[in-house]
């Protein structure tokens, strides 16, 4: 009897890129639920807009690069980038903010470097950084969490959609009435005005540990991160080292002067620390590949993010910390190459 010849091993691979990407999206569901609870459904509009922008720009770039378009779109990587951008921008922004962010991420950070697997920088963070530097006003206006309960004016469903699409608010409202600086922002400006942390934290925007609302989103994000760890999609090295370095530095300075520096708990549960540690720094393509390299990479991100938050010009330095460490990856990979079995 005759047979056709194929190559070993004769085992189905246990996973694939679309499966990995799908699990990353699943893992964001608890965080999304918490986000909607505290900030309304603005994020859903942003996710939708960013996803459409991602698919369009991905298809366009694949077409230009003469790559198979369906395979590129269905791998889900563009959607993950889009959703992460939607998570990092304020829930109430004009439609072109997520569009510009996603286009920058997919076109500049991803495809100009060679598409999936070849990007040096984390696409979502490139998109976010471009938005933050170009549109600082739009990017720092957040609606307060559970605005109604805190006594803020709230936009209704239709008004939100109208604002997203046309940047126009109902006649009797203005943007300053419905948005607020983020807690990290307030700390920054507060300390500049010589207030102590305890004074600044009297504001209802601050919660028990971190910022009100954000702390709960962070906790729900941890569940998603643990799911990714359990599924084996991310390794523990990066999240653990990011959080550890963030903790070490914040604890150190908190111990020195608790009036000028925030507590470790506040740092961990505010801003993008948790989502950054589990979902952004763990992007495999732009991270270090060896376990030792990952530990250094994560430690670098945590400490740089702390430094930028505390002494830098931006309220949350996570994106810049990630981008800076991305650029050190070739070096990390080179110097942390594992020793081959049987070689000294």
């Amino acid at each position, binding site marked *: *009897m*005759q*047979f*056709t*010849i*194929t*190559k*070993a*091993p*004769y*085992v*189905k*691979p*246990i*996973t*694939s*890129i679309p*499966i*990995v990407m799908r699990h990353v999206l699943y893992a964001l569901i608890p965080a999304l639920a918490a986000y909607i609870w505290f900030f309304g459904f603005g994020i859903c509009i942003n996710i939708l807009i960013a996803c459409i922008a991602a698919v369009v720009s991905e298809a366009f770039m694949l077409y230009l690069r003469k790559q198979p378009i369906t*395979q590129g779109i269905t*791998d889900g*990587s563009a959607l993950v980038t889009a959703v992460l951008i939607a998570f990092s921008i304020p829930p109430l922004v004009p439609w072109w903010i997520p569009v510009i962010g996603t286009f920058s991420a997919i076109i500049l950070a991803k495809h100009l470097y060679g*598409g*999936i*697997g*070849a990007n040096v920088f984390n696409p979502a963070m490139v998109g976010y950084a471009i938005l933050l530097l170009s549109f600082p006003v739009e990017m720092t206006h957040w609606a307060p969490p559970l605005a109604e309960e805190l006594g803020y004016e709230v936009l209704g469903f239709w008004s939100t959609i109208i604002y997203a699409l046309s940047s126009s608010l109902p006649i009797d409202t203005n943007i300053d009435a419905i948005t607020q600086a983020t807690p990290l922002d307030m700390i920054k400006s507060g300390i500049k005005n010589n207030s102590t942390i305890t004074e600044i934290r009297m504001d209802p925007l601050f919660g028990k540990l971190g910022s009100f609302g954000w702390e709960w989103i962070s906790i729900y994000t941890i569940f998603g991160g643990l799911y990714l760890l359990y599924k084996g999609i991310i*390794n523990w090295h990066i999240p653990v080292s990011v959080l550890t370095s963030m903790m070490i530095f914040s604890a150190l300075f908190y111990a020195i002067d608790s009036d000028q520096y925030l507590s470790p708990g506040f740092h961990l549960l505010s801003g993008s620390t948790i989502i950054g540690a589990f979902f952004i720094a763990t992007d*495999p*393509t732009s*991270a270090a*590949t*060896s*376990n030792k390299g990952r530990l250094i990479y994560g430690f670098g991100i945590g400490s740089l993010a702390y430094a930028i938050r505390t002494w830098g010009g931006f309220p949350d330095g996570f994106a810049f910390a990630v981008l800076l460490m991305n650029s050190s990856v070739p070096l990390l990979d080179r110097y942390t*190459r*594992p*020793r*081959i*079995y*049987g*070689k*000294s």
Partner: protein
Amino acid sequence: MVKNHIAKSFTGGIKLNANKNVSSSKTIAEQFIPSKLIIPMSHQFGPDAIPIVKVNQRIKKGELIGEPADKNALAVHASCSGQVTAIEQHQEPIVGEVSSSTCVIIQTNKDDDVSHQKKYWPRDTQTRLNLINQAGIVGLGGGSFPTAEKLNSKSLNCELLILNGAECEPFISCDDVLMREHATEVLRGGMAMMELVGASAILVCIEDDKPEALNAVYDAAGQLNSKLIQIVTLPTRYPAGGEKQLIEAVTGKEVPSGEYPINIGFICQNVGTAYALDRYIQLGEPQINRVVTVTGQGIKNPQNVLVPIGSPISELISFCGGYNDDVSHLILGGNMMGYSLHTDELPVTKATNCILAINKSQEEKSTQIWPCIRCGDCASVCPAKLLPQRIVKAYTNKNFNKLEELGLKDCIECGCCDVVCPSHIPLTASFKNAKYLTEEATTHSLLANEAEMRHNLKKIRLSKEQMKVDRLHAELKSNVRGDNRKSMINDAVNRSRKLRNKK
């Protein structure tokens, strides 16, 4: 009391569906005699044997049919009684491919005349090693390395003999059932080996998914009542049975790159080889058969069969009930490190541990390949601690220096990286090809170097000759100057005059 150890583990590796119960639930079928035998004269190592039988000659089971080509080479024996019908070139599976070699074709009869008998087992090590070669005994783990050569190491100081019964590859269960049914023989063979190499102990290493084999070996060791036998339970993880991984798991030491276990004081032998050696010492039976696992969804009646060497795979499969209708590929070996065959008209060799017939659903691979996303999963499962994602990139760029630097040669081709790769990149296949290309490039550059050397030598020789000629010319030129010149012209004129006068 026999000591039972639990081994630590080795780096990398993965848990796989073992699929072993398919074949290991039955006892070894020992009554298989094929209608014809195709016995190759070639060995995976060393020179081919020289056939000493003639067409139509009647031969007995165990009779010598291929004489060793030199003192240290291996002999070949008839594995059944019968009549030689031809001595011709025939295809056989050898080291990952199918190639042609001289084979003795035997029409078997059912007489089962046995020619071999128990021989005197001498005391002298060298004589014993010669006898092992004459019995044609090679390693049955799949490498077919001559056993005598591996055991010939008294000068190298072997501390431990490791009997490898890990059998980590899915589907294969021939060592498992052998240990269940012949544990005493296996251990006795192991002790004979230990004596030969002067080791101080035997470690029998078995994965913990084979409790019956572990129990059998445990009981047999108790009966033999030797303090030198120790049993090691290995956690079941592929590739625990790889020689280097086994040594790492059991001793915590690594075999230096490019060297053999004996360089750090260990010798690994497969349990099947120990059994074969015991058969020879006890019964005088040369290595003429082996246990083969015939399994997979493509086989009607999967089981382990004691197969005479040279049996056609097609007959062995008929013995196991034949193929199921949906069979799509025939694989020699397990599903991780085996290789696919284009036909079943091939003989079973000493390296054939498993015949795996799989159907479409088992084989079905994704046809989609994505670019590498640098997730590093391949590196974390690599037992050789390599970076498969970097090696495959160097392979695509045909960067041979980089391949060498990244340790391509240390790849054991276990296939773990393929299983975990989310991009479905054919890593192991690329590495096999890369090894082949590297070898080719090395030979090529060697040849080129030789040619260059010849060319340079020729250039030197030619320039020397040219210099000689030049010097002669220069001498002549310098001689024909000044007064000398006039006298020379006069001489020449005189010479020509003389000649004219003579005429």
